[in-house]
């Protein structure tokens, strides 16, 4: 089987982007929507076809899934050794990501036709969506770390463009800048990591980098610096880029603000696909992490665990429904990071790796569903604040049911997909790090609590006075909800342990009751607490908030991390670094240039009166000069 055609998968959205971008206002909204959605449908079909042929027909050789280069070309040849290639790499995780990205993207395209109906920048929106799809698909198919970096930046740009879609709104502009700057800062680490890694291993190529018997891994970690090998340092730097994209603490501050973008964008980029790029990156380089840089992998695990706890705590106090979902996303990505962090390479040791990819898949489905349902709600009541919602179940039955399914899924209620993937993660953590296991178990309870807090506040509780009665969204918007709800329910039955594993070989898994029962119980307790507190309007939530006054205030203000950043940048960096540099630039660099200009101007001022336009003055100067010259020559030749 030839996978050459996989280049079409990123190429189609690129063409759609160019067509929509160049024709922008020449196309009607309807045409733009149809072109965008059709393009994505083709990509969706191709991805499913690729997944089918890869997983069930040609991927497996001797019981092991192979890494296949579908297409390869030399892009830049600097020297004989330094060659940058472009291509498509087909292996379990890239095929899985293709399915995730194309499914969610296709659903979001359909949904957006309804959601963005009548907006001014409709065509621009679809052009950017296609640009994003192109970049994300290119990212997951990358054959080498350089290519992934290029597409990595491209998804950053598309994210920036889409967050700032409402460019007339100052908060959206600020959010887009914040997202771009924070992730760019993280990408600085990624770039350093790439340079260190490729300098150390002499290759960009993923296949040779991650071959457990290859030279990159067998050469070991290299010389040590501060107790960690060069390999570890480079992978920690790479992880810094991944942490920035995946909104891990402390680089998470951009994600809540990114909710300023249109809701379909939040669903596609800031829930299902782009933000898991960090997880994908670590998974892509997983054999090196596991074998050459175990300390780096440990860091991944702890950062993931902390972020997931941190975000879950904040999510319990927020009132903006999209922000609750944003923190929930951060928390769930923390889960995926944890799973990678506690995983080993190969065989049953690699359970965490498989669990992480599993959770990535199910999370993409149910979190996209949650966001799209939230968008449907916002569409109906024109507000983001849950204080102005309540009792919506009567008005929006489809949204209500699908949202409930997603909440149950994320809470880990069996037999929905979230239960299976979360259970695998907890099992992996249980066998490797008890501390992380208990943290994640607690987070599972928090997750159930804040999701059902959201659910009850929106669909039950007290009904506020609506200006006009909310109504169910059009079919274009409910169809993706239903589709994703079905995916959320059933994706847990996909046999991931046979398809996506750390070394390509299927592993055996069995449910461990010692993990599964507490996990489900904790989830049910979370739901029960939310039920008691938010099913009907009561004074209980306020009482609890008052009971933990200090802690509540800190949580509500997201532990003042934003303020801390502002303090560091404005008070310290601006004052003690930027200001001296600005002074130097203005006084010394500019001063030199201005000085030169001033001297020239002064000199010109002095002699400009010679240029009088009086021909006789010129004549006088000329004659005087001639006489002087004559005298000099006479003196020289005749007198001396």
């Amino acid at each position: 089987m030839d996978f050459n055609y996989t280049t079409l998968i990123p190429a189609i959205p690129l063409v759609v982007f160019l067509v929509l971008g160049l024709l922008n206002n020449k196309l009607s909204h309807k045409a733009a929507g149809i072109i965008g959605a059709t393009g994505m449908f083709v990509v969706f079909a191709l991805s499913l076809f690729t997944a089918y042929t890869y997983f069930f027909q040609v991927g497996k050789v001797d019981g092991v899934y192979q890494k296949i280069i579908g297409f390869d070309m030399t892009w830049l040849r600097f020297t004989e050794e330094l060659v940058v290639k472009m291509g498509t790499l087909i292996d379990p995780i890239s095929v899985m990501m293709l399915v995730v990205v194309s499914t969610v993207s296709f659903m979001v395209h359909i949904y957006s036709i309804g959601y963005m109906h009548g907006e001014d920048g409709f065509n621009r929106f679809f052009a950017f969506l296609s640009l994003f799809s192109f970049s994300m698909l290119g990212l997951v198919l990358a054959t080498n770390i350089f290519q992934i970096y290029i597409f990595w930046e491209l998804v950053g740009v598309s994210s920036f463009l889409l967050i700032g879609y409402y460019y007339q709104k100052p908060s959206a502009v600020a959010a887009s800048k914040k997202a771009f700057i924070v992730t760019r800062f993280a990408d600085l680490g990624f770039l350093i990591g790439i340079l260190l890694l490729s300098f150390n291993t002499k290759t960009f190529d993923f296949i040779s980098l991650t071959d457990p018997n290859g030279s990159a891994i067998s050469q070991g970690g290299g010389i040590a610096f501060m107790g960690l090998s060069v390999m570890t340092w480079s992978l920690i730097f790479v992880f810094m880029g991944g942490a920035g994209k995946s909104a891990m603490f402390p680089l998470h501050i951009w994600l809540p603000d990114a909710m300023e973008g249109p809701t379909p964008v939040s669903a596609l980029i800031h829930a299902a696909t782009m933000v898991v790029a960090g997880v994908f990156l670590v998974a892509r380089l997983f054999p090196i992490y596991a074998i050459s840089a175990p300390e780096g992998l440990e860091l991944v695990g702890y950062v993931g665990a902390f972020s997931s706890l941190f975000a879950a705590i904040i999510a319990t106090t927020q009132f903006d429904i999209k922000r609750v979902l944003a923190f929930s996303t951060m928390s769930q990505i923390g889960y995926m990071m944890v799973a990678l962090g506690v995983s080993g390479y190969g065989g049953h040791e690699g359970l965490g790796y498989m669990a992480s990819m599993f959770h990535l898949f199910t999370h993409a489905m149910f979190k996209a569903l949650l966001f799209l349902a939230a968008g449907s709600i916002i569409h109906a009541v024109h507000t983001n604040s849950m204080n102005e919602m309540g009792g919506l179940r009567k008005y929006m039955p489809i949204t209500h049911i699908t949202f409930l399914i997603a909440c149950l899924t994320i809470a880990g209620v069996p037999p929905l997909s979230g239960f299976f993937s979360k259970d695998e993660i907890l099992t992996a953590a249980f066998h490797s790090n008890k501390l992380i296991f208990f943290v994640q178990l607690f987070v599972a309870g928090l997750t159930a609590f804040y999701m059902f807090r959201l659910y009850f506040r929106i669909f039950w509780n007290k009904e506020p006075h609506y200006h006009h009665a909310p109504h169910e969204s059009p079919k274009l918007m409910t169809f993706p909800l239903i589709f994703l709800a079905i995916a959320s329910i059933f994706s847990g039955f996909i046999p991931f342990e046979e398809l996506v594993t750390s070394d390509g070989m299927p592993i055996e898994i069995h449910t461990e009751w010692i993990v599964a029962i507490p996990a489900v119980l904790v989830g049910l307790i979370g739901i029960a607490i939310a039920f008691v507190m938010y099913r009907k309007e009561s004074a209980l939530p306020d009482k609890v908030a008052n009971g933990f006054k200090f802690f509540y205030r800190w949580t509500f203000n997201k532990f003042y991390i934003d303020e801390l950043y502002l303090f560091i940048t404005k008070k310290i960096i601006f004052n003690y670094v930027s200001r001296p540099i600005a002074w130097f630039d203005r006084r010394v660099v500019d001063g030199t240039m201005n000085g030169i200009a001033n001297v020239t101007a002064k000199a010109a001022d002095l002699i400009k009166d010679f240029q009088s336009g009086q021909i006789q003055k010129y004549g006088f100067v000329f004659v005087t000069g001639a006489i002087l010259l004559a005298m000099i020559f006479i003196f020289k030749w005749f007198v001396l």
Partner: protein
Amino acid sequence: MLSELHLEHFLIVSTIMFFIGIYGFLTRRNLITMLMSIELILNAVNINFVAFNYFLYPNNLHGQFFAIFIIAIAACEAAVAIAIIINIYRRFQTINVENVSEMKH
């Protein structure tokens, strides 16, 4: 009679003429007078050419040719200069050189 005149006499006359020309060129404000001064300078040079030719190289005629050249060029130059002066007069209603300083811009 010519034998009593030496080269020095001619040179003295031409030098005097030359400096009268320079003086006139630098002090007169009237463009026509300045043009006349230039003619004086040119003729001083002509005298030099002819005198040097006659006294130093009596068998050649190069100096006299040059004198004729210069006379021809002086004629052209006078024609052009007078044309310019007429235009200046039309534009500025004067041929006083001090009032014609537009060229500096």
